[in-house]
């Protein structure tokens, strides 16, 4: 038996070990190898294992130069091994299974030295691993900007992860090794299928590993900690990749092929209008819907349901044509849900309406995505689809509904006041009894329109403006004035009239109604009321009031803020309302009307109103007011205006709806940017009214025409406080700081337009000209001009200087004589002089 012979030889070598040193050790290893080979031939797995362990131990000790110190222990161990093998061989020779023979445990040399060595190894690893991790981070961050180099970058990332994995393996750190392995697998899957790379997840992965490595640096025996969720995420991602599904944080992919790019704008426009219609219909529908089902007796609900269904269906159709798969899928499930309701498989409950509205919102976001904004994330998209599918798949629940429907009332009702336009009445009716007549208006309100590009429109408006000027020049021509022919005079008069009508018509082309904005608010009221658990009835009036398109667009944000505020802070909770004898349901009214050449949008609630004392106290406590200000000295108006200060918020708690104290500040700024004003009326306990006073159009401003030398300038009337001819004794010169003038107790700096604009001519003596006090951003300054010519509405035009504006000028205006006057931008003008 050769193994036995081998063992005998081995024990002879072992005898020589304590004196023999390394040479003997080498012999030992060799002999071990021989025995291992023989054992393997005869399939004695246990023996093979034992030999391998022993060899390893010796090799390690040799490598670490510890052989000599531990020679005795090794000898001991090897003798054990020999004895074991001998016994074992005996058993085999007898033909028995060597069950009762126990192999000796592998020799563990674990002294202090060894641990230090391990720590050193780990230390080296920590250094290199931290380097690798920072590389990894850099690579991950470059993924998004990689473009065509993406493949390269991903390969780099994979390599780094792989290296980490190998090093963890060497150190026998199984947890991190497994994690790295999973990450590697995931990257492979993603590369293979071209799925979007989950940068955020990988960054989190990197951070996790980094935390562990850093903890290793302080304690080599640190535990890796729980990586289950990360492991699961990576695993999930790897599985998803084949299905082209990216990470949940990645945006939904929307791409349109070259051939169809031309039809995209049209699709976007149409889809938006369909969605807007659908939203209105849904909100209306929801006003007849309680939490269980909708009221069948309402004749409008079918129509609204059909309208919404058609909207989604159309969008789906066109989107399919454009290959926008994500959009198609979403529209399809929404449609399925609606179809279920339409074919009376089940009733549309409030939560269904919420879902459909959410689907509409997401499609809107996707459309925004087509226009370059960030589309919604895949996770949200999938989530919504799942929810829609679940709802659509439910079986008939018609039977259960009837009873509950009768008792419940809608959370939000849209009640049109009697003086409102007929179309707004369409948004009405409590569940029952139904006033049938009010609902049918909807179908009739479609107006025929064509789409015209705004540049063409502007061109038309420009030309009409020019026509008006030319007409007045002709009229004022002396040759015409002294004509005596009556017919000619009449004809000229006629031309004048037509010109004015034409101008009016041209201006009206830019005007749009506030209807769409108000409709959005109806939706908002529904959402906010639902979230804050309040019951609110919104009434809308004057939604056909027209405003310049730009104004309408920009007034939407401030309105959202104010309506949120009104519901969240203004209107009390139902129980509180009952307690103070108010109707459980809060009333919110939104109306628009003309007043004195401007448009007023009014938001009125019947909530708790502003508490004058509270507002004042709050302002003082927030340090927004000086200590010397007394509450009595301020008018209500002034006190209420404090809520527009930045950092002001009276809400006790901050909710996700409002209360962070930025809202009203933003509102005021937005409105002022539109050259509008905002007013507050409030009675404690009775409610608050906000009035936004807006200009009809942004293109026209009220201006004061002033003359400086030969030139005329337009100063926006809004920024003018007063004008006066200064008294020489009120004017002071401050060294290096220019001139100042005393105006009613205040000392204001003087800016001479003549000097700022390098005019060759014009007054230099202050007492011969006029000082105009202008206020911008709370700062008052005086502009010195030769004279004030008059006040006039002017159309603001660009100076044609392509992109940049000239500092201090906001544009030009064409005067009645056809010449150009420059419009001052007082803010930047003053600023530029001060900074010069």
């Amino acid at each position, binding site marked *: 038996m050769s193994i036995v012979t081998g063992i005998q030889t081995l024990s002879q070598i072992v005898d020589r070990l304590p004196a023999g040193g390394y040479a003997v050790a080498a012999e030992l290893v060799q002999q071990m190898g021989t025995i291992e080979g023989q054992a393997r031939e005869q399939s004695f797995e246990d023996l093979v294992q034992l030999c391998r362990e022993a060899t390893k131990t010796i090799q390690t000790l040799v490598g670490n130069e510890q052989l000599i110190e531990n020679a005795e222990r090794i000898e001991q161990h090897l003798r054990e091994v020999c004895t074991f093998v001998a016994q074992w061989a005996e058993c085999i020779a007898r033909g028995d299974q060597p069950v009762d023979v126990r192999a000796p445990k592998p020799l563990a040399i674990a002294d202090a030295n060894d641990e230090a060595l391990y720590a050193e190894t780990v230390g080296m690893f920590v250094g290199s691993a931290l380097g690798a991790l920072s590389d990894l981070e850099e690579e991950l961050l470059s993924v998004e900007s990689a473009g065509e180099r993406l493949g390269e970058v991903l390969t780099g990332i994979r390599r780094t992860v792989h290296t980490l994995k190998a090093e963890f393996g060497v150190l026998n750190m199984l947890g991190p090794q497994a994690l790295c392995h999973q990450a590697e697998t995931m990257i492979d899957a993603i590369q293979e299928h071209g799925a979007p790379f989950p940068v955020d997840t990988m960054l989190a992965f990197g951070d996790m590993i980094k935390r562990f490595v850093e903890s290793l640096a302080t304690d080599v025996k640190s535990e890796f900690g729980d990586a289950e969720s990360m492991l699961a995420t990576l695993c999930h991602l790897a599985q998803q990749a084949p299905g082209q599904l990216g990470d949940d944080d990645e945006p939904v992919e929307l791409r349109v092929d070259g051939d169809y790019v031309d039809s995209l704008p049209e699709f976007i426009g149409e889809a938006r209008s369909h969605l807007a219609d659908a939203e209105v219909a849904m909100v209306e529908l929801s006003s007849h819907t309680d939490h269980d089902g909708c009221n069948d007796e309402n004749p409008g609900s079918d129509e609204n349901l059909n309208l919404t269904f058609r909207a989604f269906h159309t969008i789906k159709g066109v989107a399919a044509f454009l290959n926008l798969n994500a959009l198609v899928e979403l529209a399809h499930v929404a449609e399925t849900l609606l179809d279920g309701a339409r074919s009376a498989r089940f009733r549309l409950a409030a939560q269904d309406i919420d879902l459909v509205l959410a689907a509409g919102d997401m499609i809107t976001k996707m459309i925004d995505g087509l226009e370059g904004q960030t589309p919604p994330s895949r996770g949200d998209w999938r989530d919504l689809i799942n929810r829609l599918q679940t709802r659509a798949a439910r079986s008939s629940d018609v039977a259960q509904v009837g009873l509950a429907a009768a008792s419940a009332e809608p959370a939000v009702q849209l009640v049109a006041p009697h003086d409102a336009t007929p179309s707004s009445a369409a948004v009405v009716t409590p569940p029952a009894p139904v006033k049938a007549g009010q609902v049918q208006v909807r179908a009739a309100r479609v107006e025929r329109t064509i789409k015209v590009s705004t540049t063409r429109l502007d061109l038309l408006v*420009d030309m009409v403006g*020019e026509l008006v000027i030319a007409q007045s020049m002709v009229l004022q021509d002396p040759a015409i004035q002294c004509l005596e022919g009556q017919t000619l005079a009449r004809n000229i008069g006629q031309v004048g009239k037509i010109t004015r009508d034409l101008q009016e018509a041209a201006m009206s082309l830019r005007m749009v109604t506030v209807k769409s904005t108000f409709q959005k608010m109806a939706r908002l009221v529904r959402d906010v009321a639902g979230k804050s658990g309040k019951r609110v009835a919104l009434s809308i009036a004057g939604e056909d009031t027209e405003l310049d398109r730009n104004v309408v667009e920009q007034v939407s944000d401030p309105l959202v803020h104010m309506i949120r505020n009104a519901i969240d802070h203004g209107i009390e909770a139902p129980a509180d309302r009952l307690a103070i004898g108010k109707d459980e349901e809060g009333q919110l009214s939104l109306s628009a009307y003309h007043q004195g050449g401007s448009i007023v949008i009014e938001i009125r609630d019947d909530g708790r109103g502003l508490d004058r004392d509270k507002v004042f106290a709050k302002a003082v406590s927030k340090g927004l007011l000086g200590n010397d200000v007394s509450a009595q000295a301020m008018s209500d108006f002034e006190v209420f205006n404090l809520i527009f200060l930045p950092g002001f918020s009276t809400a006790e708690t901050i909710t996700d709806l409002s209360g962070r104290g930025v809202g009203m500040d933003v509102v005021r700024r937005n409105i002022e940017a539109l050259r509008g004003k905002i007013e507050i009326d409030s009675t404690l306990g009775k409610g608050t009214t906000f009035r936004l006073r807006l200009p009809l159009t942004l293109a026209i401003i009220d201006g004061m025409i002033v003359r400086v030398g030969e030139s005329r300038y337009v100063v926006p009337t809004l920024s003018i406080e007063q004008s006066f001819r200064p008294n020489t004794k009120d004017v002071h010169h401050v060294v290096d700081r220019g001139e100042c003038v005393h105006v009613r107790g205040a000392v204001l700096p003087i800016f001479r337009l003549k000097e700022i604009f390098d005019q060759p001519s014009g007054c230099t003596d202050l007492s011969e000209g006029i000082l105009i006090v202008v206020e911008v951003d709370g700062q008052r300054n005086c502009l010195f001009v030769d004279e004030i010519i008059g006040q006039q509405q002017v159309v603001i035009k660009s100076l*044609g*200087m392509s992109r940049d504006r000239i500092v201090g000028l906001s544009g030009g205006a064409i005067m009645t004589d056809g010449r150009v006057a420059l419009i001052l931008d007082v803010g930047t003008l003053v600023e530029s002089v001060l900074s010069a």
Partner: protein
Amino acid sequence: MNTTTDNAATDNAPAVKAAFDGGKFLSFQLSREEYGIAILKVREIIGMVEITSLPRTPDFVRGVINLRGRIIPVIDLRRKFDMEPAETTAETVIVVVDCGNGCDSSFRVGCVVDSVSEVLAIRAEDFEAPPRCANASGDYIDGLAKLKDRVLILLDIDKVIDDIDPSSLAPGAAQ
């Protein structure tokens, strides 16, 4: 018409002919020289009107005018090319050009010139690359066109107008 001595460039360097396929040019007078602008750049020619001067702009920007309801800037080519100023005469006109510098194609500018003469068809073989010696207008010259008895300086109006594009209009950038 008189040809000028310095720009006629007798010692023309080996002409590096730019790609030029010929075309029609509007010729106009500036000081004693005759210039040409590609006719496709020219939108219209209007008589002198009152110009509202624009503060804080380079001195060659005369100001802005009202062109049928649209405000456009007007530059003075004499001032631009450092020539002595001239009195406005009955012949002085504003040539309105559309500058298409790629990104902003609708940049429309008026150029004050002494007078306009005619529209000339220039053949490719009459074209010469610009002389190496050039006055202030040198940077803006596309080339020269040899006519029977005179030389026409062909202006690259885009380059001239590029100069009054935004950055140079910032305060303090005046020449």
